[in-house]
């Protein structure tokens, strides 16, 4: 093991010259979000510098989760680096499935403390061991079209509007004849898809997933109010086919100028506000995600991060890449080649404070403020035994979240009523929690 480490550092130092002899191949599992695609385009620079090669496995988000979870939980060793999120990282880290990255703190050039504390906390277990490094992090806020709001005479809210006010804006902006839908929201089933929007919505309506005894609360009045609101909103003022639209579909619709409003990830802003990739770059602005009876937990917290499975055979090379891909140099590289507006957001303080960034993306500070205002440890009006805004940080949540997502998406598609969807969801959640031993 020591010998291999020596080898690795030797290659790292004498880079190109000795590269051929010690070159390794690493496999990275990723989703095809815009920031990851940029990384794939830039990665050859790392490959050239180190002589190593990368195999990219690009999968759709749900499939990625299934493949990576399957591989890491069976100790399969197929991947050397995985893109995972704020939900998986602490759970997997605590299971001993991920390589701890605490030693990144020793590297002065890397400057671990430059990465936002909140984000690092989200990627650490309860004992403070760091298991993943963020490419970007996000909360949710509202995108709106300044031109449409002006045309229709809609007042831009100051501060945080309520969902009721938000529905009125969507209604006023809705003009399908002219190809503008009042609002685009996620409808595609999945705990990381529609439930990411629904979770904070329910929080805003005063609801919660579980009470302090882990009893599911899906049949509560708060959930009913929230989901009824959601189904009405999206079916009245949303685009057709909304029950199949996830983040990427909505992003495409919004960039194409089809939506007047959209509550979604702040990380999409760099793409939506980029004139090279978006038709509405000049006419998009933001305000906070709406509140209702409370403003607690109304914006989610998420981070896409790189982690190394404990089963990887090439940990040193993987670490080397990981360091490069989240380093200041990498962000600099993205800024110089793709423009400072396209630099992944919400990761490094130095990047967000960089004058080039602020000039290219004046909205960046709004996003950072929004992210820093999230508190995953205290997400709901009433007390809860869990952390997480749009998810519950327990292994069972994936299954429950997916099922509830399916039910709500069926309600949105008009296949069943909101009451049926929530009754089914409650039954399922009680089953799962009983099976897992939370409910005795």
């Amino acid at each position, binding site marked *: 093991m020591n010998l291999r480490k020596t080898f690795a550092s030797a290659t790292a130092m004498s880079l190109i010259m000795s590269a051929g002899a010690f070159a390794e191949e690493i496999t990275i599992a990723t989703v095809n979000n815009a920031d990851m695609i940029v990384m794939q385009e830039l990665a050859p620079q790392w490959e050239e510098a180190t002589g190593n090669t990368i195999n990219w496995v690009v999968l759709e988000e749900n499939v990625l989760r299934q493949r990576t979870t399957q591989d890491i*939980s069976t100790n399969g060793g197929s991947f050397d680096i995985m893109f995972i999120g704020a939900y998986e990282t602490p759970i997997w880290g605590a299971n001993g499935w991920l390589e701890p990255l605490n030693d990144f703190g020793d590297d002065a050039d890397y400057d671990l403390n430059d990465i936002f504390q909140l984000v690092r906390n989200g990627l650490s277990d309860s004992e403070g061991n760091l298991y993943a490094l963020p490419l970007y992090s996000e909360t949710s806020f509202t995108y709106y079209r300044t031109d449409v709001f002006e045309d229709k005479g809609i007042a831009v809210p100051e501060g945080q509007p309520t969902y009721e006010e938000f529905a009125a804006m969507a209604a006023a902006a809705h003009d399908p004849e002219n190809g503008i839908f009042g609002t685009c929201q996620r409808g595609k089933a999945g705990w990381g898809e529609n439930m990411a929007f629904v979770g904070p919505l329910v929080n805003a309506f005063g609801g919660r997933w579980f009470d302090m005894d882990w009893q599911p609360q899906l049949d509560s009045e708060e959930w009913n109010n929230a989901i009824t609101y959601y189904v009405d909103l999206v079916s009245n003022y949303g685009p057709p086919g909304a029950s199949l639209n996830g983040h990427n579909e909505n992003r495409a619709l919004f960039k194409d100028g089809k939506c007047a409003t959209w509550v979604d990830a702040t990380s999409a802003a760099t793409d939506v506000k980029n004139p090279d990739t978006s038709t509405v770059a000049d006419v998009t602005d933001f305000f906070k995600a709406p509140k209702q009876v409370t403003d607690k937990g109304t914006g989610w917290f998420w981070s896409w991060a790189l982690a190394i499975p404990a089963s990887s055979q090439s940990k040193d090379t993987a670490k080397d890449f990981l360091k490069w891909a989240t380093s200041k140099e990498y962000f600099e590289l993205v800024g110089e080649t793709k423009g400072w507006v396209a630099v992944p957001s919400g990761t490094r303080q130095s990047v967000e404070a960089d004058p080039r960034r602020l000039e290219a993306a004046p909205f960046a500070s709004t996003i950072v403020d929004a992210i820093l205002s999230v508190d995953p440890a205290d997400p709901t009006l009433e007390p809860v035994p869990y952390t997480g805004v749009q998810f519950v940080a327990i292994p069972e949540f994936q299954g429950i979240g997916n099922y509830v997502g*399916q039910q709500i998406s069926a309600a949105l598609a008009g296949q069943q009523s909101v009451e049926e969807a929530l009754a089914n969801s409650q039954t399922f959640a009680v*089953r799962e929690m009983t099976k897992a031993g939370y409910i005795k």
Partner: protein
Amino acid sequence: MSTKASRSAARLMISPAVVLLLMWMIVPLVMTVYFSFLRYNLLSPGATPWAGWENYYWFITDPSFNDAIWNTLALVGGILVITVVGGIGFALLLDRPMFGTGVIRIMVIAPFFVMPTVSALVWKNMFFNPVNGIFGNIATSLGLQPIDFFAEIPLLSIIFIVSWMWLPFATLILLTALQSLDQEQLEAAEMDGASWSSRFWYIMLPHLARAITVVILIQTIFLLSVFAEILVTTNGGPGTATTNLTYLIYVSSLLQFDVGMGSAGGVFAIILANIVAIFLMRMIGKNLDA
């Protein structure tokens, strides 16, 4: 007629296939059955205690279970009806004299070569998408409300996509069978004044019976485990509208990572498959006594 030597040689020759298939079937099967009695969730590593019949209880009482059985049968049945009826129609049509037979036939069989993933993606995006899809475009240009296929008629949409792929297969087999029909017999019937419909019912259809059973058998084998088309388009939804048994097992063992319950589901699917198999074997067994 066979000698003792050739019989033992025959046994020797058949054994690699049998032994391999036995292993392929039995090793995972035994593991699946074993797992189905364990409390085994990949997400909670550690001990996997004996669970008794718990997993079976949870799987049968899964709220999606009934829907899944029903959807599986509807999917297999629907696609079989479409492909067999459509296949007979196409075969009769292509059997007639026409210009450019070769080209037309190539166009008809082409969908059979398309990967299920590709065909699902193409239908989902380029055709069924209510905003940018072709059907949506046509509807909008006629001033109609575009149909949101996967929300309004999800199961039918899946049946449609899968049928598109299997219709050429049925057509090919039935066409070949039809072409082997004795033309003189048909002509004689025609001379005797038999109408087209009676020629079809009494001569052609009986002749096709064997080919039809083959189509049904082969397709059932593949259709029981339709998966890629569902995963790519609807993820089993909305709700459970397109969740078949295969997909339900996928959900429990690979989305909830409850290997115990997924294995119990697997055992169920195997039982269902065997019931269908026995039924089919009976049916086709007669026809195979050639």
